[in-house]
């Protein structure tokens, strides 16, 4: 397994995340797509730590912590959206529009 193959897999994962982000309308499904994209970034960090010796491993740990924080706040926002509107479709969250 080479660096190039791993990078291609990570790119494919990120593209799949972009597709999900553009097609999904449920807030939780958007969070899932973001998870897939963050996962691709972590994979690149680990790949460059193995090939070339970049300090990727500590960065992956920090990225994990940030992702967990993001999911916690995101799900709290989804809960709030559900309480206000009775559904979690993202179009309902139009209060923030200027």
């Amino acid at each position, binding site marked *: *397994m*080479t660096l*190039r*193959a*791993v990078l*291609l*897999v990570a*790119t*494919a994962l990120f*593209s*799949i995340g*972009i*597709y*999900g982000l*553009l*097609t*999904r*309308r449920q807030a*939780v*499904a958007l*969070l*899932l*797509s973001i*998870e*897939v994209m963050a*996962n691709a970034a972590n*994979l690149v960090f*680990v*790949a460059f*730590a*193995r*090939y*070339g010796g970049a300090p990727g*491993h*500590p960065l*992956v*740990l*920090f990225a*994990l912590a*940030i*992702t*967990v*924080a993001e*999911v*916690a*706040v995101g*799900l*709290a926002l*989804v*809960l*709030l959206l*559900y*309480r*206000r*509107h*009775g*559904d*979690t479709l993202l*179009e*309902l969250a139009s209060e923030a529009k200027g």
Partner: protein
Amino acid sequence: MSGELGFGLLAVLLVIFPAIRVVTCRDLVRAILWLAATLLGTAVLYAFLRAPFLAGVQVLTYVGGVVTLMIFGVMVTRKHEGTSFTIDGSGRLRAALAAGAFFALVAMAIFRTDLSLLTAVETPSTQDLALSLLDRYLLAFEVASVLLLAAIVSAVVLARRRDPVPDPATAREAAALREGSTP
């Protein structure tokens, strides 16, 4: 070369296919379970890239923590069985074009870059990782802990806020959006 082919098959089977299911599955709970599958597959790739500690952390925090949290989030906010998505076809085509264009761009860059300078090196052991976290990356470590604390507090504050029952107008709007027609 056969090792490369084997890796490609493994990656597609363990990571890519579940990821595609995550973004195309119509049932939200199933999408979350497919996300768990793709995260586990990524943990396998971490193990292949000589990062066993990160593979373990990935399984513990992502599959054990994030996926459980997501499933709770769906269970709490789900009203009817089989929450489905209404996705119009043109939007899907445009999204596929955008994702494909991004993939083509980055893949082209990957193939045109000379990666032969980057040879396989020994990855840091778990001990080295722990020492570097508390030595070189101490400031980032502390900032991450403050970030986690802020996230917990803000999640509690947001989730505890009690709003009255949704008023009929927005409820009608929600129903119209569910049907797929814009009000």
